[in-house]
């Protein structure tokens, strides 16, 4: 008779634990080796003087907080922090409002709703390198589609070499990132809208509330928890954007779009200052980690409330 049968508790439980560890071992070992260890190693490099010679096995003396101090003293770092803040805030503002508007539209039943929604999602699924290349071409100064649109609608005076002008390059990159982000925001907000009890709207309509009043008094307050979650996720995903900006401008012109992720890349992979790059990387990590902590707290609270309800 086999020991692993329901009912025989003692050895059964021990056996189950053993099987559990056995099953989870490959996955956990992988995550330890390729995720946890590299991140710890990153922290280790950040307090050591590691350069190209370190890659070849040279000496790597401990240098305390020197890498952090050097990073904090670098004006380019603070410039990157400011650009990341503007990039993130601009992207979030537009992708959330546009996503919300689209979600309101797609929350209503109409023919072809599912098909059109899927088509919109395409924009989000395209590899960021493709979207970046695409928008570089759309925003091209001489033959870009946006400038052609402006010219053909009599607004040719506004046509512009968007990505090659430091004043407009960041705006162009934000535009591309909003394009990528809108469908994702719409999808998650749509899930929230579907969770609102339609009877609330019907009752309010019977009481004479017009569409705007129902939106202000019912939809908006009930969408608040979902909105905060979507914005936190958006913050995490936008703050770390690298490929899109890298492909569109490479951080330029000059340093007009040199957001924090690109700064880390340049220090680490172009200047080969591994110690300083690792330190800057950990600083880049701080914001998403903080947002992630808030996000996880919300998820847990929602789960608890879900169980209570």
């Amino acid at each position: 008779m086999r020991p692993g049968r329901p009912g025989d508790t003692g050895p059964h439980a021990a056996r189950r634990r053993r099987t559990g560890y056995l099953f989870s071992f490959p996955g956990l070992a992988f995550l330890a080796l390729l995720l946890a260890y590299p991140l710890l190693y990153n922290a280790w490099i950040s307090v050591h003087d590691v350069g190209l010679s370190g890659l070849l096995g040279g000496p790597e003396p401990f240098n305390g907080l020197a890498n952090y101090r050097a990073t904090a003293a670098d004006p380019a770092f603070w410039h990157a922090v400011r650009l990341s803040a503007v990039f993130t805030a601009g992207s979030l503002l537009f992708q959330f409002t546009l996503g919300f508007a689209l979600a309101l539209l797609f929350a209503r039943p109409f023919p072809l709703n599912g098909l059109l929604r899927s088509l919109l999602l395409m924009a989000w699924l395209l590899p960021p390198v493709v979207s970046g290349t695409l928008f570089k071409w759309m925003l091209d100064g001489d033959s870009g589609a946006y400038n052609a649109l402006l010219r053909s609608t009599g607004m040719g005076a506004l046509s512009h070499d968007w990505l090659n002008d430091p004043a407009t390059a960041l705006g162009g990159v934000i535009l591309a990132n909003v394009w990528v982000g809108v469908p994702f925001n719409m999808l998650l907000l749509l899930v929230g809208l579907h969770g609102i009890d339609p009877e609330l709207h019907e009752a309010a309509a019977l009481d004479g509330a017009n569409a705007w009043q129902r939106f202000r008094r019912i939809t908006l307050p009930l969408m608040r928890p979902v909105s905060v979650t979507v914005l936190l996720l958006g913050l995490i995903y936008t703050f770390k954007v690298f490929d899109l900006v890298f492909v569109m401008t490479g951080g330029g012109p000059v340093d007009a779009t040199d957001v924090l992720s690109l700064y880390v890349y340049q220090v680490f992979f172009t200047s080969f200052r591994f110690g300083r790059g690792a330190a800057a990387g950990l600083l880049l990590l701080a914001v998403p980690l903080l947002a992630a902590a808030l996000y996880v707290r919300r998820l847990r609270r929602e789960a608890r409330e879900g169980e209570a309800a």
Partner: protein
Amino acid sequence: MKPPRRPWLLTATAAAITAAFLLPAYWMAATSLKQPDRILVAHPQWVPAPVTTVNYTAAFADGALARALANSLVISCGVVLLTLLLAVPLSYALARLRMRGSGTMVLALLIAQLLPSIVLAAPLFILEHRVGLDNTYLGLIAADTTLTLPFAVIVLRPLLQGVPVELEEAALVDGCGRPGVLLRVVLPVMVPGLIAVAGLSFLLGWGEFIFGLTLAKRPEVQPVTVVLNSFVGAYGTSWGPLMATATIVSLPVVCLFAVLQRFVVGGLTAGSVRA
């Protein structure tokens, strides 16, 4: 919500918005089909006429694109395989076999999928170089799997929790071992979740750029995203071949999404709003 009075009006509005929104994607495909002398002009044609394939011929001319596509295919399939191989037993253990610390594990995975790749790429670059994994398929597949594995476990674990324990216990009584139960009872129930995870892992591997850029310097293993980016630098204004390349890179994404849409959308929302 009650059905709107004029549903087709809503359809027309939504269709117009969708069309305007997808203009960049249309423009990519349209440009790729235009004759080179019709591309760099002040008043471009909105519909390519006559349609030509010269941009595609040019894009494939030196063989770099074909090799990069093959590399990306190998890498993406590798990512799917490795992800499933590691994620299925791990999610099962976390879902069923009440181990100590499994709650913390799930939390850590949730946070892991939110990390900026560049912060991981930096130390991985040094570590993979030391063990000779840089410039190999395996090095790239392993790096990409750090993105897909946390996500896969977060999607699969709730599904596994939904498999009735009685079903498994019946199989155990009938003499299946735990691995047998996993293979014959549990796996069939979770097929939709597996399809979602496989599809999304493939898409992630196909579109991944940061690890490709930093961990693969040799063209022999470089994924197509990195090659597309180097085309952008090298052929600055040859937008025809560039858009042809971008279109080719997008095609598998579009096809896969069209086929697996239902699963993929479910997996996406599950991965980000559930824990």
